[in-house]
């Protein structure tokens, strides 16, 4: 699903590379936590997977494709197989819940009939059945994140990328979101989640990849947030 071969990434005007010689493999259907302090390279890792950046060295394979060889105009097609969720939800404030989710299908040219069927279905799945007509501003943070997850998942991506999805939520709401992500993972969707939330990582007991100053320092199945020193 995802393979990094000796990947390094350095940004211009920065002496220290953001990622240094990272190699790893993530199989289909896995649930992976990406942990590390701020500036450890988590975001760069996710940006490389989304092909918002290209690796400076090494190869990044996503969904069986070498992203270095993927031409620019094919990138949108690749991204349609990825879903993305962010800490700040990134919803459109002037569109209703249903319209926000439908937007993800409209902009890739899905037929209207299909959208009308898929949107209520996925909203039901994330536990927002009946809130189709609400505006994002009227919803709680947890509900807004559920809309974002619904939008990421409505096109049934093979891979869901979540960048600190619980970063703005209280612990109880976060548990609900994690349960939702776990459920999505159980449908066969690979989930990569970058997080700082120690409690969640420790509870879920999933694979943990830790980055530190751009290096891969730990790759542990059924891991916890930090070493017990």
């Amino acid at each position, binding site marked *: 699903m995802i393979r990094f071969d000796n990947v390094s990434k350095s940004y211009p005007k920065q002496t220290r590379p953001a990622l240094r010689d990272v190699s790893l493999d993530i199989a289909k259907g896995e649930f992976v936590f990406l942990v590390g302090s701020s500036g450890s390279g988590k975001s760069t890792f996710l940006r490389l997977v989304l092909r918002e950046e290209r690796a400076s060295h090494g190869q990044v394979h996503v969904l069986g494709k070498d992203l270095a060889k993927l031409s620019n*105009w094919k990138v*949108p097609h690749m991204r349609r197989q*990825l879903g*993305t969720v962010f800490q700040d939800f990134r919803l459109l404030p002037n569109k209703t819940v249903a319209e926000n989710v439908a937007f993800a299908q409209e902009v890739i040219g899905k037929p209207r009939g299909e959208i009308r069927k898929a949107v209520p279905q996925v909203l039901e799945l994330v536990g927002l059945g009946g809130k189709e007509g609400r505006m994002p501003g009227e919803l709680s943070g947890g509900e807004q994140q559920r809309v974002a997850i619904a939008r990421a998942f409505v096109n049934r991506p093979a891979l869901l990328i979540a960048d600190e999805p619980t970063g703005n939520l209280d612990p109880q709401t976060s548990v609900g979101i994690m349960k939702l992500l776990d459920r999505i993972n159980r449908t066969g969707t690979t989930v990569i989640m970058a997080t700082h939330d120690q409690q969640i990582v420790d509870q879920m007991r999933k694979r943990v990849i830790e980055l530190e100053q751009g290096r891969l320092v730990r790759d542990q199945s059924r891991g916890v947030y930090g070493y017990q020193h």
Partner: protein
Amino acid sequence: MRAQFVMSEIGVGLRRNLTMTFAVIISVALSLALFGGSLLMRDQVSAMKGYWYDKVNVTVYLCTKNDAALDSAAGNAPAAAGAPGTAAAPAAGNGKPCSKGAATPEQKQGIERELKKMDLVQNVMYESSDEAYKHYKERFGHTALASVVTADQMPDSFRVKLKNPEKYEVITSAFAGRDGVQSVADQSMELDNLFALLGTLNWAALGIMMIMLIVALLLIVNTVRVSAFSRRRETGIMRLVGASGFYIQVPFIMEAAVAGLIGAGFACGMLGAGQYFVIDHGIALREKLQLINFIGWDAVLAKLPLVLVIGLLMPSLAAFVALRKYLRV
């Protein structure tokens, strides 16, 4: 891609930047009106050229007795009797072309023979001083000057019609300064001055158009940039869910295209209004200057599609280029 969705996005975008949209519309309208205007001006000039060159003659004025007397007397001004109303270019070389006396019948015959032999010449018409006097009386009889002019002051002349009026120099160089020839006048020289003036005006219009066009393009680039910035949230989400670059860019390009098309529409309106109010009615140049053969509506209408197409394509292209920079996909 769904048209309704795209159209509503365009409407939202245009309203969001209403002031900038107006600026784009106005500058596109002005630059395209100048562009169309200078195209029409070019048509007008060539219409006038065709019309007037067709009518003008090269005139070879022959020496009269008066001319001979004047030229024989030392240090005299050039002959007064160059047919009034035309430009009498003094014959080259000899400052006193008629010092050898009035043109003799032999000289006249020689000139006529040679004129008729020239390939360039379409026909030659002899105008005697009596005829010239008669024509002069017809045209200027009511003026004070006409009452003092007498028939023997009017020179005999050959009116020469050329096949290609722009080659008048050939006649001038062949006959000016010849015995018995007072001067060779070419009316098209005056026309040339007029056409040169019109040509300069046309270039000035084109220059202003270029400046307006640059202003319009800069405004479009800026509008697109503002538009892309104010919609970065939408475009960011579009990118994330895998909308194609084209799909993301189309609303912005269409916005610019719609604004440009409205501007081009105004430009067409201005051209039409110019034709209507300046030439046909209002100032009504067509009636007041009947000497000039003005262009008609067919010429104006022929320019409108070009103006509209440029008004549509130029902003779209500018938006497309601007988006490559400001809307990374």
